[in-house]
């Protein structure tokens, strides 16, 4: 038992330790996101979650490797002191899978936008669920190609007016969560970029998931596609779900188009019975057992 007095001593020490690790995860790079951009919150959340894993002694800072796409979201590469590749547009997912082929022991996190993964890299998005590598995809969905000044993406709502489509978007948006489920996803979650506590919780669960974990972050862009913003009122938290038929219902609740209805956030589906890429391939399994990548295979 720790008495009240001791508690008050221990707590700040832990807090300082944590913030030291969080600090180590940052860089000196000047931040160029617009003031107030939700990407700041996502960055903070990632740092806190990764720091916690490090502080708990589960992983070292060097065990993490990230890939980022190209876009506003992808600037997170410069702000995280973690190994990684700042990839070509659309290719953050296959590059990350490649890292796992090269060293299955790496803890890999991928950051991609809705333009990046649902448009340019959609084939990789679908196949990632099939391969099921043990890694995490953080998908920054602001329903806009923001870094290229606000063109519509596959999740932009009908009627969205932009410089590139002044007649308005004719098509209904795709539903990437439905697509993920249809592609045999083993982990699908959705979070709200405004709720860092919930985001921390879900990111940690995603990283702990044994297989490909997909977390869609609903985030506003403060400059482009303003009509898509402020969906908070529609969001509600769900319990972690492992039931497939419930998942099928949940992924259908939000169509990315209307401002009506509900947006479930939390773990929408998880299935840990499906073997991961690293478990399926004997070569990777053996590297995992030795705790090395190919570079250390002869050790």
């Amino acid at each position, binding site marked *: 038992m720790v008495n009240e007095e001791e508690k008050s001593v221990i707590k700040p020490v832990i807090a300082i330790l944590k913030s030291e690790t969080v600090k180590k995860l940052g860089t000196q790079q000047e931040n160029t996101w617009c003031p107030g951009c939700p990407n700041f919150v996502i960055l903070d959340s990632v740092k806190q979650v990764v720091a916690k894993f490090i502080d708990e002694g589960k992983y070292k800072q*060097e065990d993490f490797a990230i890939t980022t796409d190209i876009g506003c979201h992808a600037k997170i*590469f410069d702000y995280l002191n973690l190994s990684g590749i700042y990839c*070509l547009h659309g290719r953050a997912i296959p*590059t990350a899978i*490649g890292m796992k082929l090269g060293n299955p022991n790496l803890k890999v996190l991928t950051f991609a936008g809705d333009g990046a993964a649902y448009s340019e890299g959609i084939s990789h998005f679908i196949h990632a669920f099939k391969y099921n590598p043990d890694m995490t995809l953080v998908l920054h969905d602001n329903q806009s190609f923001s870094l290229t000044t606000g063109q519509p993406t596959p999740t932009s709502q009908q009627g969205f007016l932009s410089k590139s489509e002044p007649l308005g978007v004719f098509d209904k948006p795709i539903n990437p969560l439905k697509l993920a489920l249809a592609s045999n996803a083993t982990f699908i979650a959705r979070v709200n970029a405004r709720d860092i506590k919930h985001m921390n919780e879900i990111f940690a669960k995603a990283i702990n998931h044994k297989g490909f974990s997909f977390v869609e972050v609903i985030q506003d862009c403060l400059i482009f596609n303003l009509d898509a913003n402020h969906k908070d009122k529609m969001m509600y938290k769900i319990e972690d779900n492992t039931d497939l038929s419930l998942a099928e219902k949940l992924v259908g609740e939000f169509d990315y188009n209307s401002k009506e209805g509900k947006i479930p956030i939390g773990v929408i589906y998880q299935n840990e019975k499906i073997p991961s890429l690293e478990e399926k391939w004997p*070569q990777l399994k053996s590297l995992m057992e030795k705790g090395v*990548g190919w570079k250390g295979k002869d050790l």
Partner: protein
Amino acid sequence: MNINILIGGAAGQGINKVSDIVSNVLSKYGYYTFNYRDYPSLIRGGHNFNVLAISDIPIESHSLKMDFIVALDERTIETHKSELKKGGVLVTSEGFEDEGKNLNVALAGFLIKILGIPLKNLESEINSQFKESEDALISAKKGFDKAEKKFSLKKLNNKISILSGSEAVSIGARNSSLDVYIAYPMTPSTNVMNEMAKNQVENNLMVFQPENEIAGVSMALGSSFAGAKTMVGTSGGGFDLMGESLSMQGISGIPLTVYLASRPGPGTGVPTYTSQSDLDIALRAGHGEFPRIVIAPGNPIEAIEKTSEALLLSEKFRTLSIILSDKHLAESEFSSDEKLKKVERFSVVRDVPGEKIVKAASYEVDGTGNSTEDAVLTEKNADLRVEKYESLKEYIVKNMEMIKIHGNKDSKNLIIGWGSTSGAIKDAIKDLDAKFLQVMYMKPLSPQIKEEMENAEHIILVECNVTGQLGRLLREKTGIKIENRLLKYDGRPFCVDELKEHLKEML
């Protein structure tokens, strides 16, 4: 001595088995063989043929005119009878109607007898190829017994092995202990993938087939970044798709080796035939300016050595190395008694994630590995890429065999060629007053090439493409335009007899 045998039939009839058996028996008997495979893009039916050339001295080509035609079907007779030499023999399935699926084995037996090779050599080959099959042996013997001896080949003491270019690339990669091979199926690169995949677990490597070539090359960059010796394989269209990632290699400096096997383009072109028309894209694919190495082996022995060199150089200079081959090299079966040069072994020594914090980017970066748009750094990084090219060039010029000179070294008649065309050129000039300069490093180019060109009185360029791509490259680098060009671009490689006739006219 040079005997050419055409073996033709419908896809699925097993013509490859005939050339397989005959060339194995012959190589164990000390003879050199070369087997050209000609087949359309279909799985059953149609018309396939092989040309098996046999010689008592090394050969790497086949002829237009045949000593024998072995026809498993009527269409072979119709299509090829005009290629039979005066006094040549047509072997048909007549008398073998009952052999069923072993018709090919029977015809192989028939050929072995014609060549005058003892029955026991045929028997041991059949036994090793068809472990438990009595039927195969009976058919082979039946074929043997029906034939009449036309030649009396004496046993020779050459120690010969048979290899295709694809097997060779795979051997070279394994000699350098490649870890990860990534490829999406596309003729004629697929055989390397199949070769590597065969015993991947025992060979301690991994072969991955991704959803498309863009995924494949992206994965390769990730895998290499993580410390694995990594290679991707593809053909023209797939290579085009990889273009942007080659450029990504250029800026990030993540080592990457690409195996590019050409076929006639543009577009889907003529998928199962051959062409040397992808030199231009090998040299230039990918936006921006960045260093690279392009190496074009001409036969399997070179393919083994050059694949190892490509992997070594990619890692050493953190650069892009492209091994440029084509269908003719990839799928023809060559025989050789050459000894391999010693492989330079290497390990990945750079820092990798898991050990250190390492960053790589598709953006220009500063010293911390983070992105930058700074003018001074932009210029400096570009200069560094040029310096990298200069230093790899210096290393290659000093350490690697970049060209080969064949034929009469004192001749003033210089023939220039590269890649799979080299075999036919080497064989065609055997009794001509000509020297053949075979270019193996297409980038960087050997400084010796210019000297050779300046010293020659008469230069002929030989290539399998319509614009003379090596010729254009040499003109760019040496200022010398080659006026005499022998270009073939019908999807078929040069036959040695046709090439020799052309060269004689031009010399």
